[in-house]
């Protein structure tokens, strides 16, 4: 039901500056996407046979993420797993005490595949992305 770890999400202030440092580690930078639903600029960094890095820069009017950025600086703030059925995961996670930030929604950065975010005090944020 729960697939592999897909990516680690970094909240950043400057996508190009952070991407450059990861490129030195062998990552390849993809095109930056403007996700108007999540109100973030998103850029994936890929490396063969490795977990991807997602750089997330909040839009200027995305106050809640700006607040998170101010608190944690440039830092990893979520991990994302692939799943076969996000609706099943949604029910399971909420049953087990995780707080959903929203119900599964289509995401621009994943070609319309559905994502959802959960939070718990002990781990922080986890994202799931549907396989198809």
């Amino acid at each position, binding site marked *: 039901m729960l697939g592999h770890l897909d990516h680690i999400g970094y909240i950043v202030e400057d996508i190009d500056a952070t991407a450059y440092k990861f490129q030195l580690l062998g990552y390849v930078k993809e095109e930056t996407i403007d996700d108007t639903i999540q109100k973030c600029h998103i850029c994936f960094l890929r490396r063969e046979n490795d977990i991807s890095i997602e750089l997330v820069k909040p839009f200027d009017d995305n106050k*809640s993420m700006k607040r998170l950025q101010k608190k944690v600086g440039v830092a990893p703030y979520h991990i994302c797993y692939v799943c076969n059925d996000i609706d099943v995961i949604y029910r399971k996670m909420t049953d087990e005490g995780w707080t959903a*930030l929203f119900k599964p929604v289509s995401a621009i950065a994943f070609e319309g595949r559905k994502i959802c975010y959960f939070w718990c005090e002990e781990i922080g944020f986890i994202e799931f992305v549907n396989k198809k």
Partner: protein
Amino acid sequence: MERKEILEKLDVIFNDVLDPEKEVHLNERSCADDIEEWDSLSHIQLVVAIEKAFKIKFTSREIMKWRNVGEMVDTMLEKLK
């Protein structure tokens, strides 16, 4: 603690956490639709701040079921008894 006192404290927390363009004045019917800065992520940030300020813990079911501030206060009153 009474509802009025909780609402007054929540007012301070909401304004502190959300840092809204226009100062927030909560009432029992206030909900996320009324306050631009109150989104799903800031909801978590509010929960963490409220738990810390009132020394209480919410369950995920409680956090996800509230439709307005009045329902949040109902939960808080139960925990503060």
